[in-house]
């Protein structure tokens, strides 16, 4: 295996992977806390509107995928933007990726602590999750991308479990009123920002373009993924509205998980614990992808993109991520009560990257006259 490289592009993956990746990357930590930020039934329209906005970003991203630069990977970016600019962008990207990894990992770990292991030191859980992600990533980018199929099949069905909550005898259509906002507060704007940030993630797929059959109806496949996410968001939000009602929804930290707590089975009580554990598969997939991107970005920043990748280098990156997560967990996440600074930062960062990266790439392509 001497010729093994983490970023080997031995196979060209079908565009269906783009659909699955768009969807699963949009279904991470934010979807679990989504109803808390939306609360009011009229936010149903906001989800749909922001979904269209997300579609705009995806449209711009598809232009990049269809360009001649996309399949070239790093060389494509360097050709379009210049090597120095790419290095600067990679350096900025390092921080953004790290922030994303931090929020989704710490968020998930917090959920496991809340529902499964109340007395567990969360740093152990972070370590275990990162060890798994290190193993996933060390096998290479192509197998990690392929892992999305397993992540999708293992977690996408969970939405169906909530169908039952839509048809409870206690539900009335009045639970979904008012559908038109009477007042539009700063909180409502924050809700919009939150949804847009929750939908972010597909912008990082531009870095994975060399692994896909980029020219085959990419927009269609990305659109399907995005549409499926919007449907899931709507479904989950309406289910939680029916179950808790807007007044009680404000009081709950993890509404989606709390809903699942009420499910019953003749074999197991507390199905939520099983479902949370199942959801780990999706998180492992996403974190592994982001760690691989982090490794790639650090290689570009350090001008080592042309050298052979090493497993020790990747392990070193994983250790850096662990240290950062450990520090952030101790200093910010555990201490956060009402205001979680990391979460706030990620809401802004996610929304900004999702709008700026597609725009930036599109204008760069326009400038080069390649669109």
């Amino acid at each position, binding site marked *: 295996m001497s010729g093994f490289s983490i970023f080997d592009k031995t196979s060209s993956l079908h565009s269906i992977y783009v659909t699955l990746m768009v969807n699963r990357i949009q279904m991470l930590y934010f979807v679990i806390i989504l109803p808390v930020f939306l609360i009011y039934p009229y936010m149903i329209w906001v989800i749909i509107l922001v979904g269209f906005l997300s579609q705009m970003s995806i449209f711009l991203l598809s232009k990049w995928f269809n360009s001649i630069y996309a399949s070239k990977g790093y060389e494509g970016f360097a050709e379009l933007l210049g090597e120095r600019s790419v290095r600067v962008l990679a350096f900025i990207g390092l921080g953004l990726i790290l922030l994303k990894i931090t929020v989704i990992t710490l968020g998930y770990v917090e959920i496991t602590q809340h529902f499964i292991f109340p007395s567990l030191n969360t740093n152990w859980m972070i370590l275990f999750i990162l060890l798994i992600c290190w193993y996933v990533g060390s096998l290479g980018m192509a197998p990690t991308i392929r892992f*999305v199929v397993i992540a999708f099949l293992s977690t996408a069905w969970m939405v169906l479990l909530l169908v039952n909550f839509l048809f409870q005898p206690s539900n009335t259509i009045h639970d979904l009123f008012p559908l038109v906002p009477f007042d539009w507060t700063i909180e409502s704007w924050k809700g919009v920002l939150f949804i847009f940030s929750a939908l972010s993630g597909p912008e990082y797929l531009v870095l994975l373009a060399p692994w896909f059959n980029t020219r085959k109806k990419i927009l269609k496949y990305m659109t399907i993924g995005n549409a499926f996410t919007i449907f899931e968001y709507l479904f989950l939000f309406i289910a939680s509205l029916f179950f808790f009602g807007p007044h009680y929804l404000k009081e709950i930290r993890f509404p989606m998980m709390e809903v699942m707590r009420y499910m019953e089975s003749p074999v197991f009580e507390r199905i939520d*614990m099983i479902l949370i*554990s199942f959801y780990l598969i999706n998180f492992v997939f996403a974190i592994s992808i982001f760690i691989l991107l982090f490794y790639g970005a650090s290689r570009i920043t350090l001008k080592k993109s042309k050298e052979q990748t090493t497993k020790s280098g990747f392990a070193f990156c994983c250790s850096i991520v662990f240290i950062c997560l450990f520090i952030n967990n101790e200093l910010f996440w555990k201490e956060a009560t009402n205001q979680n600074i990391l979460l706030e930062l990620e809401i802004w960062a996610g929304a900004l990257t999702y709008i700026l990266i597609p725009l930036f790439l599109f204008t760069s392509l326009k400038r080069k006259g390649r669109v």
Partner: protein
Amino acid sequence: MFKKRKNTGIGNKIENSITKTKNTPITLEGLRKSIEKMDDAKIIEHQTQNSKLFVLIYVEPLIDQARVNEAVIEPLRRCTKEKISDCISVSEIIDISTLKEAEKQLMRGGVLLFDTIENQLHAVDLKNTTGRAIETSETETILYGAKDSFTENIEQNITMIRRRIPLTSLKSEKFMVGSQTETKIILMYIEGLTNPDFISIAREKIENIDYDQILDSSQLAAFMEDHTHSMFPQFQQTDRPDVCAFALGAGKVTILVDNTPFVLNAPISFFHLFQSPEDYINRWIVASFLRVLRYLSFMLSLLMVPIYVALTTHHYQMIPLQILYVLVDTRSRLPLTPFWESLLMLLTLEVIKEASLRMPTKSGQMLGVIGGIVVGQASVEAGFASQVLIVIVGISAIASFLVPNYLITKANTLIQFIILILASFLGIMGIFMGIILLFVHLNALTSLRQPYLAPVAPFYGKDWLDLFIRGPLRWMKTRPEALHPLQKWRYSRRR
């Protein structure tokens, strides 16, 4: 400092001298020297009717003595022709020019015939072909369907496949592998159907084997595998010719090894290990049900004991109240923690399973029954294990046997132990971490450089018709996409 030194030792010198000797022109003395101290080798001198001396050299156990008398000795004794090779009534006579060649023929069941007048050596292939008769497969038993299975005779095995696929496009390439054993390997595939990449990869892998002994197909598989350190088999080993014919027809390659009844099929996926030949004999609904049952059993055998440990160690709140009463009652008198209790019971079970396999058939069955019942009952009465655990261990042991591939059953046991350890530390979360690691590992595996989790990852939707279920054969119009066959359609006339 660590530079490889050129071997100039005595061994090398001897080797060189042997090579030199073996390439020298052949003499009777040289032949005698080659077979000295071989009591089973015979040198017989006879005269023809016109008093010409001829010498026969052969290794007695390797040849068919009756045929030697009938086809060589008697015709030569009566021979009146000038050239003695003209008197022999066999289809092929090979002229030998070097000692090395002569030795090779001798050790493969050839009879060397030395013409003293012309000073020429001939070889006649009269190898002893006696072996085991064709019997029913013991490893892949089925109620209906073909009953024949491969034997140790490679020619016979090829015949069984060729009878099923009477096509000239069914190609067979011969390789000799193993510097000591010179084992005959046959690579079979259907030209124009099997993806040429698979053929060239298999060919390359066989040609690159540099080892002294290849005695079994599993040994060959070990040298051809893409991932040496995986617990999962990357070749399907089968002794059923119908399975091989099906695999060839789907677009795989088949590798036969001489003196082994087990044939290798590749590339395979994880899901192939759950397919039984009987799936294609049963009605599709029944076959689908049985296949789903096999997958479920595999998961049950992996997870039942770890779930017991996770629930009783970390998550009592997950157990319904009625079951909890039973569990608390049975566990209250036990001195061991659930983890140690389970570990000991699983290890005991493995010992019983392994012992019953190694014993003669009848004793093995008895040992299995007595061991299972007596040890289980005694350990409950002695207070080492709870009745609930005995039931769980029993079910998981039986469930593990539903997987048709025995190799995966063994891997299953090891994975179960790993998940058990994770469950004892991290409860239900640990179990899922174990499952994720398993999926990740499988996802990165390849067989003949093809993804092991195909058609799930990578995704080939059409192949799902013969994956978790076995769809009606009429609907399976195309060959598996994951195998990238050159002929997509199974029907000769497109419908």
